[in-house]
């Protein structure tokens, strides 16, 4: 994001009339829905180094929340708290609580396997299993016992691939290895895999950073469609992407949640000076 674009966007936004400027779609102001996840006083330590300081954040249901901020600000760390992936990191300690449906999912006693069926994840670099395309999608439903027989499984696979916008491209080669697809297709495969287990929340950690603009556009379309059914939290480096895709944006800086609010407001009239500095490209 270069200087001129940011300045233009801010100026034009203050006009509040123009909706497309230099290829950027200005976000519409959308009221935020009921929170699906409530994070309260979340602190994360990697050994002795603290990565997140007292994060309080609500994630609204059936909407896309974007986490933005410069490198190393803790947005990925926060994302990984939601599906407890930080547990696999040696020496990582998480404090605080994140409530989902009334339960604190950060509680040691909560079953991680069940949580991860409800909260799916798509990673930065596409990582399909080295199995067939069919097997990639079918694996989750199978281990969670979501299909009673083969026909149900077939249906789940087909619907997932359809919703991920991949079905037409792969329906004739479901037995090909997942790794034989292109980068963009692989990422869509990973998204299909994530939604195949009928999660409630889908976490996306910079899902388009390894993809070209066309593939990126397709996935952003997909995200927009998916929020009908799922709550989506997306970490992104690209502010344009955050502006295009999300309804709520949270800005992190040095492990602190600096500002959170409707995407439209964050990008046109941020309250905090740091937010302003980031979105106008003064740093980051």
């Amino acid at each position: 994001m270069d200087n001129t674009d940011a300045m233009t966007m801010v100026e034009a936004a203050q006009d509040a009339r123009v909706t497309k400027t230099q290829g950027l779609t200005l976000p519409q102001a959308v009221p935020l829905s009921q929170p699906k996840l409530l994070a309260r006083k979340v602190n994360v330590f990697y050994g002795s180094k603290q990565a997140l300081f007292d994060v309080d954040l609500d994630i609204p249901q059936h909407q896309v929340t974007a986490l933005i901020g410069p490198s190393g600000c803790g947005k990925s760390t926060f994302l990984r708290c939601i599906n407890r992936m930080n547990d696999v990191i040696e020496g990582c300690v998480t404090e605080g609580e994140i409530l989902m449906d009334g339960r604190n999912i950060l509680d040691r006693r909560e079953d991680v396997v069940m949580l991860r069926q409800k909260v799916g994840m798509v990673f930065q670099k596409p990582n399909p299993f080295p199995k067939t395309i069919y097997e990639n999608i079918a694996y989750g439903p199978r281990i969670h016992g979501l299909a009673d027989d083969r026909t149900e499984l077939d249906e789940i696979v087909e619907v997932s691939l359809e919703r991920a916008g991949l079905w037409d491209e792969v329906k004739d080669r479901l037995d090909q290895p997942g790794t034989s697809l292109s980068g963009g297709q692989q990422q869509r495969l990973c998204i299909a895999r994530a939604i195949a287990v009928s999660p409630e929340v889908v976490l996306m950690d910079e899902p388009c950073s390894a993809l070209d603009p066309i593939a990126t556009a397709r996935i952003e379309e997909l995200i927009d469609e998916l929020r009908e059914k799922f709550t989506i939290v997306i970490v992104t480096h690209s502010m344009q992407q955050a502006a295009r895709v999300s309804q709520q944006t949270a800005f992190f800086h040095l492990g602190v949640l600096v500002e959170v609010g409707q995407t439209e407001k964050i990008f046109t009239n941020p309250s905090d000076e740091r937010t302003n500095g980031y979105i106008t490209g003064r740093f980051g």
Partner: protein
Amino acid sequence: MTDATGPAPQRRELKQRSTSEANVRRRYAREKRFKLYGMLAVATAMAMLAILLVTIIGNGTSAFFQHEMALDVSIDAERLDLGPEPDEAALRTAPYLRVVRDALKADFPGISGRRERRSLYGLVSNGADFAVRDAVLANPAVVGTTHRVWVKTSDDIDTFLKGQMTGSERWQPAGAATPTATAGKVTIAAETGAFAGILADVRAHLGAVADSLLKQRGALERAIEREIAELGQLRASGGDEAGIARLDRAIERDKQEAASLTAEILDLRKRAAAAGGEEALGDGQPSYFVAINGGLVKLETVSDAEATGQALLPLADTDHAGAGEWSVVAYRVPEADRRVKDQEIAWIAKLQGEGRVEQRFNFDFFATGDSREPELAGIWGAVVGSFFTLVTTLLISFPIGVLAAVYLEEFAPKNRWTDLIEVNINNLAAVPSIVFGLLGLAVFLNFFGLPRSAPVVGGMVLALMTLPTIIIASRAALKSVPPSIREAALGMGASRLQTVGHHVLPLAMPGILTGTIIGMAQALGETAPLLMIGMVAFIVDVPGGFTDPATVMPVQIYLWADSPERAFVAKTSAAIMVLLSFLVLMNVLAVILRKRFERRW
């Protein structure tokens, strides 16, 4: 990116520098040298390997071929104590040795005396009767007929026929020759100079013997001098009378021996220097035969144009044999120094003349177990023993090793205890293998009371030995699986076990299998650990199961290498070839498996 808020502060610039041609050339030269060293190293290794292979193959191929002799055996029912309708048991246990010996005697009538008969029977292997038995069992109708049976020659005859016992030369002297008799003492009158070569050789040999005797005398004379000096000292210091007398007698004896040696040397020298006349062939001389008129005469005296000797094979007649119709054969190694005597050579020559001696591929080598007789010894017993042992080793070490590696790598908490375990596993890989044998003896044999020499015990001992190898290789393979796969699986909600079992382990399989096969190949070649548990033993029967006494291939090689018979030298190399081909096969299997699994990445 940043606004220009004021005048830019002064910065230091890097001076314009460029690399020199000499520097670049030096670097390329270093690279070239490095490549050269690399190629030299590879070439040296290849050369060593080539030397090893050539030596082993050169020594071993002759063990795959065995000489066999055709005997026309009269399978007489009465002689074999068989009734009119013999059943299989009777056919199996009949005394076939009798008819074998009868057949030999029929081929060479006129043999008398126990020693000569024993020599004759020694032409064929001790297992010759089994060959006849097998022929009868295959076709019981041959009982009562005269049937040609191919039996193995004894290992000495086989060694001789392969040229490993003595070198030989054959030539045809110019001119004709006439024998004086057909049996017994025969004189062969030939043209001038026919036997001159032999005469010269014989005399040269006498000269050589004289030279060695001279050396002996020299040593004796030095000894005498020492004794005289000693005597002088003894006398001067007033030693005991008995000692002096003894020394005196010793000196006297030695002087006499020196004198006789001198006489012998002079005699030999005289004979060696003689020209013309005749010489007697004695001990220590090569054996010379004259093949003439279908018979064989062993020479005892030679002169320039005439030679006399004993007919080892009777001649057909005393006719004149023209040039090119008779020949002389010389066997370099003197008769006294070989195990196959001249009469036996003559008998074999007769059979060869009749086309009844052939070299055939020794299939029995791959079908029978060990034996004291080299020609009957086979490697099959050791192969089966190795197979059972390795199967046991694999069944024990593979599951335990892989599961231990999975646990240590994926599930175990990272603390001091797991570090300690890791260090110990690495150390176990360095323990000398014979220690595992001692462990096997103490625990498996003495404490648990398992059968001695059994493949199951050998397998357990070798499993202990290969376990560290498998664990270390498996851990490395598991570590090499990228974390993205693990994360994807965990993100899907797979439990730790499901992640490892469904995703990590299949991807780590190539490395695990390679490590396993390397461990197995190592176990295949181990001898020392099996020493203590009794698998280094002479086992004749091919083992039928995991608890029968057995031996393994490297042990068999060791036992054969230790045996005195000449024929076992070739067999040792042949067994090494079989073992090496198994190892190559296992490594090829490892490569194939690795390639097959790697495709799925």
